């Protein structure tokens, strides 16, 4: 079922999912801070604001892609949502039921409905357990009189079924994780998550650690399983191509904040947040015929322990430079607001990004490639396109350069909280 055969199956989710739009997961103002202790008596010094006031919904049967750079809080969001760690504030519901209010038996029942696939196929499987026990462990924990998962033969039969479903042989069930390749281990992780028949699966970078050829096998598998078991995915990844391929809707995160949420086609063809535009323009294109007009963001992501005031992106924002550094960016936190049907952006100046300009910025400009084509890929040039003279563009670029100086230093001076490599 994983091989190259049958090419054109029904859409990756477009048709099926769009038809019904029942909200399955609703996240409202979710906040997760990690306290920093230090100094004399190890008092609380501050917080790492990993997830800060995030709101979105996922429809049943949909793949919601969450994309952002490392340290932006996307994994924390996933883990907090399924209660692998306590939240700091905010609310979330699964099919109308409050996720954070559940206790005891109810919580256990809830866990069966929300599962997670982890990134690292080596680190997330216990090397001392045969895979039948790894996959069956959740079943054992959730065993009751009704499902009879406490009985070995019932459990093993179910483990076998799910090994089949993910394309592994049933008789591998007594083998240990080290006997499998990376792609196979990821299949085991998927079988483990699915064995409990969850409704929502958090896919936390499930293909990031895999080679390209294996990555595509796993993506195919995830889409097959979604159809077969009627699943809803929260798909977390940093790879924009993967997100575009698999998602129905996409949320872009930066420093713990959701900066843009939209339907996948809308987001990729008409991005409105300057960070999304920069992110899209930074993806290297495997087609040598096309050259992108690249926006190179300067400096590093600031520390989430001391995020910039106002809009968290303002220290690296190219749009702010173009607009002559309006003060509101550094003083007021932009709310996520609707700019078009179903398209939400958290930027004070989202309207300044005209659709045409954004398309030009993020889209690819085909140029006949020539070896002497050493023309530097314009940094900020011509983004808003309107009335910007060449000289102004250069000025803006220089201003941006000057800003790098500031951010670069600020970023590292914040020291302790600087994100790990």
């Amino acid at each position, binding site marked *: 079922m994983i091989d190259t055969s049958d090419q054109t199956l029904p859409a990756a989710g477009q048709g099926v999912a769009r038809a019904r739009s029942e909200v399955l997961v609703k996240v409202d103002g979710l906040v997760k801070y990690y306290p920093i202790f230090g100094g004399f008596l190890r008092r609380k010094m501050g917080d790492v604001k990993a997830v800060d006031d995030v709101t979105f919904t996922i429809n049943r049967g949909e793949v919601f892609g969450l994309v952002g750079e490392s340290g932006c809080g996307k994994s924390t969001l996933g883990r907090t949502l399924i209660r692998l760690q306590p939240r700091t504030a905010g609310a979330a519901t699964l099919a109308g039921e409050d996720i954070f209010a559940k206790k005891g038996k109810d919580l256990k029942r809830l866990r069966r409905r929300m599962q997670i696939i982890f990134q690292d196929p080596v680190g997330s499987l216990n090397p001392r357990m045969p895979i039948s026990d790894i996959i069956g462990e959740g079943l054992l924990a959730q065993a009751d009189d009704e499902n009879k998962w406490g009985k070995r033969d019932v459990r093993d039969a179910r483990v076998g079924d799910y090994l089949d479903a993910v394309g592994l042989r049933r008789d591998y069930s007594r083998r240990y994780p080290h006997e499998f390749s990376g792609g196979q281990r990821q299949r085991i992780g998927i079988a483990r998550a699915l064995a409990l028949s969850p409704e929502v699966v958090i896919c936390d970078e499930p293909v990031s650690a895999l080679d*390209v050829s294996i990555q595509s096998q796993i993506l195919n598998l995830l889409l097959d399983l979604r159809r077969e078991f009627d699943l809803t995915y929260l798909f977390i990844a940093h790879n924009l191509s993967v997100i575009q391929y698999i998602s129905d809707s996409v949320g872009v995160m930066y420093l713990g904040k959701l900066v843009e949420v939209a339907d996948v086609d809308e987001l990729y063809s008409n991005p409105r947040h300057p960070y999304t535009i920069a992110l899209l323009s930074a993806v290297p294109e*495997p087609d040598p015929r096309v050259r992108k007009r690249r926006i190179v963001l300067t400096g590093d992501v600031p520390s989430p322990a001391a995020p910039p005031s106002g809009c968290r992106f303002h220290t690296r924002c190219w749009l702010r430079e173009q607009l002559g550094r309006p003060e509101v960016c550094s003083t007021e936190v932009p709310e996520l607001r609707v700019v078009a049907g179903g398209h939400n952006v958290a930027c004070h100046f989202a309207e300044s990004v005209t659709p045409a300009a954004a398309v030009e910025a993020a889209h690819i400009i085909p140029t006949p490639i020539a070896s002497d084509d050493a023309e530097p890929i314009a940094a900020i040039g011509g983004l808003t396109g309107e009335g910007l003279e060449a000289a102004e563009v250069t000025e803006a670029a220089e201003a941006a350069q000057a800003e790098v100086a500031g951010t670069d230093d600020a970023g590292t001076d914040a020291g302790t909280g600087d994100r790990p490599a």
Partner: protein
Amino acid sequence: MSSVITATAAPAAAPNLPPPADTLLEVRDLRTYFHVMDGTVRAVDGVSYSIKRGQTLGIVGESGCGKSVTALTVMRLLDIPPAEIASGSVWFKGRDLLTYTDEQMRLVRGNEISMIFQEPMTSLNPVYTIGDQISEGVVLHQKLSKKAGLEKAIESLRLVGINNPERRVKQYPHEMSGGMRQRAMIAMALSCDPDLIIADEPTTALDVTIQAQILELIRKVQDETGAALMLITHDLGVVAETVQDVVVMYAGRVVEQGSVDEVLLAPKHPYTEGLIESIPSKGKRGQRLNVIKGTVANPFNLPKGCNFMPRCPYAFDPCPAHDPRIGDASPPDVACWLYTRAPGAGPPPKLRPRVPALEVGPS
């Protein structure tokens, strides 16, 4: 455009003579084996390629295909044993590096050829300052005083766009972010004005916006210093944007080579074609990705004929028994029996010319 790569015939056919003067580096029929407990791994098994002065070459392949081991062999950085350089030659500026003594090699490393490693955290020494680590090379190779070495370190940090380099040279690696550390690595690689820079997955550990910065920087310094660049990566996007010529490796062999345009737009080898087709993109939404079936060949148990045969959708009569090599084939830039007649076999079947849809990625 493909002139940079010259298909080298097997050494038996051509005597081992130095390549023409404009060839900076030529690797000929290199074989690097590792003798380990479970047997012998032929990590690099008959690889040939060359780079002219000032040119850029990309080496692409999945993990375990031997792309990094080739680079480490060129730099002579492997532990022997367990490694063994079984055959081949590495011509650099007209001399064979494999015949060098360790002393002679030390004068080349970091001076004429320098390397940028993947992991900026683990490749920098945590107990020395950035300045010490950069100046170590210049002090050693250019016989500068320690003070002049530090000056040089400051200068190269400024070249790679690090602000306030006077302060940075006194800092330790942990005080810098990932992107800054990778910049420092590049500064180190540049400090002695090398003729060849080998960059081994320089951006793999970095975020996409930082990757864009670093690629831009590598392009810029390569342009300014005129050094040749050998870029090792698994990311076809990075290759398409950074280099002129490409070598595609699979299980220790070069399976295809040519200019970026030739290889990415009209791939010949089924493996290259599969790699390109398995990139997820917008145009493939709603379809299954066309994957390469199976997994990367087990290095202890390689197939007898073509290494790629078990995964190849086009495998036919000669593939299980005969091992295709670049150089055997005509045209010589692909190692596949579809393009040449195998010994004792009939002409290859006519396949439809298949150009994989190189869909424009996310945007």
